[in-house]
């Protein structure tokens, strides 16, 4: 693991993707059946895949199923994966996840409103111990889910890949069959819209960066 990558993981921000040559080595080992390599690939990408899938799913349980199915399908199809310049492994993995989510027909828009209260979500490691803070975080999550649910499906997928998984515009464009310019335009429009909705909550948590 490179120092920059370890640093970004340790500080919780969405890190840049780990070096592609490291990923390719792990993929090669996993293709030959090395469980350790598969486990490491899962650990490297589970957060990014789950975030994107969660933003497209009706509940945490759905997102969990779609995520595990996507990884299982990807690992079973590793022999079909061909590395391409400008198309990171994550992009291929997310394409599988998107298709899995679509196939299940569990898009967020139809059912997000009926989702269980956000506080039922399992707290993450290092979650705020203060009940008021946790309530605020849960509320922010609920508002975010609602705001994403109001987006048209294509825009929601763009937001999921760009902001939940951290793909760059050209990779998002490639995964969704759009042009990079179109992706940038959608991102700009939806970003302003989402931040306007989230701003009151982000101000309270001191995260807004204007």
């Amino acid at each position, binding site marked *: 693991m490179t120092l920059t990558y370890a640093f970004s993981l340790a500080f919780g921000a969405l890190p840049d993707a780990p070096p592609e040559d490291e990923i390719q080595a792990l993929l090669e080992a996993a293709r030959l059946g090395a469980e350790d390599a598969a486990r490491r690939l899962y650990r490297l990408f589970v957060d990014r895949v*789950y975030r994107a899938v969660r933003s497209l799913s009706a509940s945490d349980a759905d997102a969990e199923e779609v995520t595990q199915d996507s990884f299982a399908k990807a690992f079973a199809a590793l022999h079909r994966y061909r590395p391409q310049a400008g198309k990171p492994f994550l992009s291929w993995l997310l394409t599988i996840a998107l298709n899995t989510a679509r196939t299940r027909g569990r898009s967020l828009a139809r059912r997000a409103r009926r989702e269980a209260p956000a506080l039922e979500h399992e707290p993450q490691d290092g979650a705020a111990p203060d009940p008021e803070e946790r309530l605020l975080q849960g509320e922010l999550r609920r508002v975010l889910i609602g705001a994403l649910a109001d987006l048209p499906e294509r825009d929601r997928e763009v937001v999921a890949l760009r902001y939940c998984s951290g793909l760059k515009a050209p990779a998002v464009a490639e995964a969704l069959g759009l042009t990079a310019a179109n992706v940038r335009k959608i991102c700009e429009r939806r970003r302003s819209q989402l931040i306007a909705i989230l701003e009151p909550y982000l101000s309270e948590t001191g995260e807004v960066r204007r």
Partner: protein
Amino acid sequence: MNDSARLDTTLIDAMTRFDPGPNAVRRMGHRIEAAFVADHTPLVAEWMELLRVRPLAGLGYSLAGAAALLLLTPLGWLLSAVLAF
């Protein structure tokens, strides 16, 4: 950092609310690992596993079977005699 990059960072940070909890990561990991192992185990190996001789388990099952025969046969006779009576 320009405004656009700052807003990108704000939204990316906000999306970390969707991170899976540790239990969810563990649950998914176990299922994915099981699927991975199953995918990479050849069918022949699975069959060979079924045919594998396990001397200790085999001995245990034989002893349990013998004990059952020894105990249940006289009990069966007794029961049938009682019913006939």
